[in-house]
Structures are given as C-alpha cells and as structure tokens.
C-alpha cells in the first residue's frame, strides 16, 4: 500500500519543462510587482496593496502546488500545511484588527 501511494504521487508529477515554465511565470509576476512599485500613480492607487497581495498569494500558491507537489500529493499533507497556514493567517489578521483599529462596517 505504501509503495502504491508513493508511486501514485510520482506518476502525477509534472515534467521538467513544466517546472521551467512555472519558474518563468514566477519571474514574470515578480518583475510586474517591482515594475508597479516604481510607478508613483500605481503606488498611490487604492488598488496597489490588494494587487500586490494577490500577486504574492499567487506566487505562494504556485510554488506550493507545483514545486512542493501539494497539488498532486496526499490530502493529509494538504491538511498538515493548510491547517496551520489558516491559523497563522487568522492570527495575523486578528493582530492587525487589534493594533490598527481596523473595523468592518456593518
């Protein structure tokens, strides 16, 4: 059974060229982030921070899914990673609400 689980995971791993394409995509996203940083109008825009956070989250997800193989690996690994990640994210947001007096208008 153990061997089957391992083999099943291996069979679905992407090819070397896919990894290279993923690396190119990560580079392009990083270049766009830095390019936006140097445009004063973009930085002044209220959409700047959400855009940056979205691009960062996209890079994070791409590395985790493709390079760390979480997209193809066993769901227990997914749970072991996403569980603490969600707790960590909630902790950060809770601290920001506490210390920056961020409010949700109801």
């Amino acid at each position, binding site marked *: 059974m153990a061997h089957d*689980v391992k083999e099943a995971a291996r069979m679905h791993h992407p090819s*070397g060229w896919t990894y290279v394409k993923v690396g190119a995509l990560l580079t392009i996203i990083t270049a766009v*982030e*830095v390019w936006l940083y140097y445009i004063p109008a973009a930085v002044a825009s209220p959409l700047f921070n959400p855009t940056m956070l979205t691009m960062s989250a996209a890079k994070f997800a791409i590395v985790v899914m493709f390079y760390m193989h979480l997209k193809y690996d*066993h769901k227990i690994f997914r749970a072991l990673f996403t569980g603490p990640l969600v707790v*960590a*994210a909630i902790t950060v947001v809770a601290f*920001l609400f506490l210390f920056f007096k961020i409010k949700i208008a109801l």
Partner: protein
Amino acid sequence: MSSHAVAHTHYTTTGLDNRKVAIWAFIGSECMLFASLIATYLIYKGRSLVGPFPHTEWVNEAGQTLPAILDIPVTSASTFVLLMSSLAMVLALQAVQLKDTPLPADANWWGRIQRSSKTWLLVTAMLGTTFLGFQAYEFTAFVNEGLTIRTNLFGSSFFTLTGFHGAHVTVGVLWLMSLLFIDMKRGLGPADEVSVDIAALYWHFVDVVWIAIFTLIYLIE
C-alpha cells in the same frame, strides 16, 4: 525498492512515509512562527520615532535628509535568485527520481542534464549562498547607514524577521551541501528519494516565506 531503502523506511497506517508526514507538520509549525514574526513587523510598522525609515526620507543627527533605507533593486535580484534556487531544487529531486529509468539513446543535452542530481544540488546550494551574500550586503549597508537592531522599532522587527529567515536559508544550504556530499560519495538513487524530497520541501518553504516577506516588507508601503 532496494533492501537498503526497506530497512530505513517506516510507513504509517496511511501508507505515507513518516518522515514526509513529519516535515509537513514541521512546515506547518514554521508557518505559525513566521506569521508571528510578520505580524510583529506589521504592528510596529510606522511607529518608529527615529530614522532610518523603510520607505520614507529621514533626517539624521547632523540635520542631513537621507533617502529611504530599503534597496529594492538589490532585494529584487536576491528574490529572483531564491526563486531560481527553488526551480533548481525541484529539478534535483526529479533527477533523483529519474535515476531508475534508462536514458533514451537519442536524449539531447536537456535530457542528460535533467538526470544530473549533482548539478542541480550544486546549483541550488550556490544560489542559496548567493542569496545569503545579498542579505549580508544588505545588513552591512544598513548598519553603515545607522540602522541596527537597537536603533528603532523598524530595525528591531526587520532584523529579527529577516535574520530568522536568513538562518533558515543557512540551514537549508548546509542540508543541500550534505546531500551533495552523499551524492558525490556514493550517488543518490531512487531509494533516497524521500530524503531529497524532505530537503526540497524545506527549501521551497524557505522560498515561499521570502515571497511573503518581499511583498509585505519591501514593496507595500
């Protein structure tokens, strides 16, 4: 699977290698560690009473106006280096996995280099060391400009966060070099796949932490 691998592999009742379960649990705990460090940085952001400041000009004791201290071009280059090290690491793992399949007779240079785990491990370790060189340069420049861990809240939280990350990269480089040493000594094969996989997972985690740090600390003002 060789008898060598069977003797050292312990599978859980889920059919998963317990070393891989352990590294994922460890990475989960590390998420919380770095989240607490990032939260601390964000809480202290903009609350420093004296400069240097990360994104705005500041006036030193001599009355000179100095620019923001963060060097985005240098950090962008180091971010690119770390991203490429992740690519090299995943190719190193693939090279180890491919060692039990014969090389086709008409294989080109890419087909041959894809199976060279030594090359990819060496490239990964070198890129990791380059990233550490960038960090050493940045820290030295900051200290020369008057920012230390005791200067202000920005200095304290910045050096703690990036210092912890740098320590993790250092551990990763040592881990990679030990794998490279084993590969040169006796050769890594499919039986060592999990050993290389857990090192790769650790290395990619260090990379994703930097992805978050680069955006939250360096790019968002």
